[in-house]
């Protein structure tokens, strides 16, 4: 008699958090589909669905391993969890004794519901050298929104809970429709487009949605701040701004007005390669057809002018009154559990931890509670590294950090590297100890959705392969060895603890599936209430939404947004542009891959085997490149090859390379890491003053055919 059950869980194949129904028969998964009784309405994408292949992949890591040969030589020996964790704990303790707690780095990949464990582990052992991709993905937004909204999150109101959907939407350097990443869910965004009047897409490339949008602004990569400032110029000078909001609830309007005068539509058109008419059209639509929202893509955070670009866009939201109004930018209230990040906030950063953060002296916003990754790499290369021992959980820093040819030798200079993963990828190959991780179908955990109005239960459906463990158990068991007072008897006790404020146990929450504040539970116009401040206002030093940021001023940054050319561009480095005449952006993503993941999943790889570089047909013709040819892309740092895709929807002066690619099937330790990964081309020299974000999406290159 076969046993068949349907288990409700939550997908974390990307940032999303789609509700899932998993059919398990006799211990094997026979079906996966979306759960219609969740806020994602039963929809799921190719990544989550293909988890069926992922979990049974023969290359899954099954046992803890320790290196027996040279680092990167690929010689491993199976060890027990006790030996592995004891070794890591001993290395940490040794390093703390010799160099202090800041010599320990804890790193993670993109934040998919486990950030709070990474941060808690780091803080519990006394270090804030947390290495995350946050500074090139989402953290700058959170930090800068934090200057105006206190806790630091503004999201597009796609939900209509306040009775209105956005009338004008700007999708800025973002393809939320295929990503569900770092802000909202594709399914909600796509639904909101049924109610929109004007969709404005800012993207160097045509997309399926921009083809049908009211306006497509084919911007030159790296010039987004100029566009935002130009739009502000038009809105202020044409007096289209929200006078009531600006007068009563903002600070520094006159200074902003003065600043934007230099960004006339004509000048901005020259900078951005857009037409002045289109810039004016976009500005008027956003100011007149309110409410509106702006979906910001992390490509803007992969530019060395990221801080001021985001500041400009936030000012654009503010002067049009698109803050806290139904259908605009919202700071959602969290469920009754409180913010799950309290799990690490409850261990405060000490002055010693702050002082020990690598890069904190320079990048005061980005390296305030996490390390500046590129500075860590530079220090490791120079032999004066603060970081000696690196505990890495998921993520492939070796792949996603700028200038791979510096990153690899830097990693080899570590005293000790332990890495947690599901597969033996390039990061694991360079480690001293590798720990096998469970998939989301194989674990119990609480998923913390990015907009933070909802948490969801990840319920275990099948056993992990071999001795693989869920991340939360790995953190807890290592935590118990290095800082026992902060860790828990077992995972269930740890989950109970995180749910305590909602008076729920893990068992109860697991049954319930999700906990959310939606619909009438959300409060709009919080600045008109006592929510943030007695008598109304924003939780800033002036009590107003600061167009002129007094906080940034006190930190020594320009308090008003400005545009700065990328470190390499036809205008900032015209000499270089003679040899490297094309603008290179490395932001190309595919809906079936997530960052560096899933190129080893057969169903997903079947959609696109080789990494693609998009190039305009005219440009390609001049270079003698035909569709499907392999092409070299070369920058001053090195060269890679990708398959040329002749694409009429890209500017003839721009090429778009596929990000984060390696070839899992190729031999280690590099697995083709240097063959096609665009970070071989990117520079870690020119970084954003506030956040340290390097120019990943706006560089120069030349392209030629692979002979």
């Amino acid at each position, binding site marked *: 008699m076969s046993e068949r059950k349907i288990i409700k869980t939550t997908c974390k194949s990307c940032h999303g958090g789609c509700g899932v129904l998993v059919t398990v028969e006799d211990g094997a998964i026979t079906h996966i589909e979306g759960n219609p009784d969740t806020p994602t309405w039963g929809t799921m994408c190719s990544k989550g669905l293909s988890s069926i292949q992922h979990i049974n992949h023969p290359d899954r890591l099954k046992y803890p391993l320790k290196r027996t040969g040279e680092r990167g030589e690929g010689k491993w020996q199976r060890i027990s969890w006790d030996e592995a964790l004891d070794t890591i704990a001993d290395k940490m303790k040794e390093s703390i004794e010799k160099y202090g707690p800041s010599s320990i780095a804890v790193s993670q990949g993109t934040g998919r519901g486990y950030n709070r464990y990474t941060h808690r582990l780091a803080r519990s052992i006394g270090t804030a050298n947390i290495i995350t991709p946050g500074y090139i993905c989402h953290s700058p937004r959170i930090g800068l929104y934090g200057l105006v909204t206190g806790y630091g999150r503004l999201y597009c109101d796609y939900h209509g809970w306040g009775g209105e959907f956005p009338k004008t939407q700007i999708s800025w350097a973002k393809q939320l429709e295929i990503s569900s990443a770092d802000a909202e869910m594709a399914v909600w965004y796509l639904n909101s487009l049924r109610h929109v009047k004007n969709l404005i897409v800012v993207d160097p490339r045509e997309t399926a949605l*921009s083809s049908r949008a009211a306006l497509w602004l084919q911007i030159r990569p790296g010039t987004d701040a100029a566009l935002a400032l130009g739009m502000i110029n038009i809105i202020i000078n044409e007096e289209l701004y929200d006078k009531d909001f600006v007068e009563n609830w903002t600070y520094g309007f006159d200074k902003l007005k003065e600043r934007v005068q230099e960004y006339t539509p004509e000048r901005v058109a020259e900078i951005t390669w857009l037409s002045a008419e289109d810039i004016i059209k976009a500005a008027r639509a956003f100011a007149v057809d309110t409410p509106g929202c702006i979906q910001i893509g992390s490509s803007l955070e992969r530019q060395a002018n990221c801080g001021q670009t985001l500041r400009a866009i936030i000012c654009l939201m503010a002067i049009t009154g698109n803050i806290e109004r139904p259908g605009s930018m919202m700071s959602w209230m969290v469920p009754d559990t409180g913010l799950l990040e309290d799990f690490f906030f409850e261990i405060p950063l000490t002055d010693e931890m702050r002082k020990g953060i690598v890069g904190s002296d320079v990048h005061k916003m980005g390296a305030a509670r996490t390390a500046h990754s590129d500075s860590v790499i530079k220090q490791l290369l120079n032999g004066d590294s603060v970081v000696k021992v690196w505990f890495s959980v998921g993520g492939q820093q070796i792949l996603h950090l700028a200038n791979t040819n510096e990153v690899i030798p830097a990693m080899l200079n570590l005293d000790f590297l332990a890495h947690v993963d599901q597969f033996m990828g390039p990061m694991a190959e360079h480690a001293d100890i590798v720990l096998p991780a469970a998939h989301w179908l194989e674990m119990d955990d609480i998923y913390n959705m990015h907009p933070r109005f909802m948490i969801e239960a990840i319920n275990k459906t099948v056993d992990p392969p071999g001795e693989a463990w869920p991340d939360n158990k790995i953190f807890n068991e290592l935590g118990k060895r290095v800082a026992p007072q902060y860790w828990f008897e077992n995972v269930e006790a740890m989950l109970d603890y995180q749910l305590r404020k909602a008076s729920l146990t893990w068992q109860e929450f697991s049954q319930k599936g999700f906990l959310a504040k939606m619909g009438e539970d959300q409060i709009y116009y919080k600045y008109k209430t006592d929510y943030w401040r007695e008598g109304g206002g924003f939780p800033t030093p002036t009590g107003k939404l600061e167009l002129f940021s007094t906080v940034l001023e006190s930190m020594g940054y320009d308090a008003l947004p400005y545009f700065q050319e990328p470190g390499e561009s036809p205008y900032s480095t015209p000499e270089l542009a003679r040899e490297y005449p094309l603008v290179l952006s490395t932001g190309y993503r595919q809906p079936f891959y997530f960052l560096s993941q899933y190129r080893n999943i057969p169903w997903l790889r079947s959609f696109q085997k080789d990494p693609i570089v998009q190039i305009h047909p005219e440009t390609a013709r001049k270079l003698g490149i035909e569709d499907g040819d392999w092409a070299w892309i070369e920058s001053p740092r090195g060269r890679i090859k990708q398959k040329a895709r002749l694409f009429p929807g890209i500017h003839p002066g721009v090429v778009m390379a596929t990000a984060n690619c390696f070839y899992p099937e190729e031999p280690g330790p590099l697995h083709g890491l240097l063959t096609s990964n665009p970070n071989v081309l990117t520079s870690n020299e020119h970084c954003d003053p506030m956040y340290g974000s390097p120019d990943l999406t706006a560089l120069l290159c030349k392209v030629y055919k692979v002979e």
Partner: protein
Amino acid sequence: MRWGMVVDLTSCARCYACIAACRIEHFLPMGMSWPRLMALETGGDRPVVSTYSVRCNQCQEALCIEVCPTGATQQRADGIVWVDQDMCVGCRYCIIACPYQNRTFLSRDKDKGFFPGESLTDFEKAGKILYAHQVGTTEKCNFCAERIDAGLARGLRPGTDREATPACVNTCPARALTFGDLDDPNSEVAGLIREREGFQLHPEYDTDPSIYFIDGKIGYADTSD
């Protein structure tokens, strides 16, 4: 009663979810895809990027039925065209005849397993029992006839009730796929075709597909004023 589908090109985000859902629903072997995405990209000053999510059109005048020498390809009263795998001899005339190229021959080399050289995964093993594929025959989309039939038997409505609706329609995050009865003027599909000028692919072939496409601009007004 004639089951049909409307694909909204305004919404489709070319995410490939429909394909993945179908592969799971029918335990498709590697190398087999019933739905596909076809990219359309035009040049010019204002290039248009579009994606046609295509699958067997369930034609009312189906050329595949006409050419099938064994009677394996048949049409049901509800319009669904299906292949009786036990009758198919693998001659592949239908593949040549289908003007939309929506049929695939399952050859032995297409069924090497998810991970060639490795043992079958649990999911593949389950598929051998729950949805066996016959090597040497031709396959195509069947509008998830199993779901429709099982759903109808329970009194559910295809296109409205999830358990009676094709898997690709259910999973689509863009809600770009709509399913229902083309013969019922009050159905959602009939309404969409009527109000948004639904069109069939290659009407010049006189095959009368049961899949319609709609397209248009996003937004209820433009900004040109």
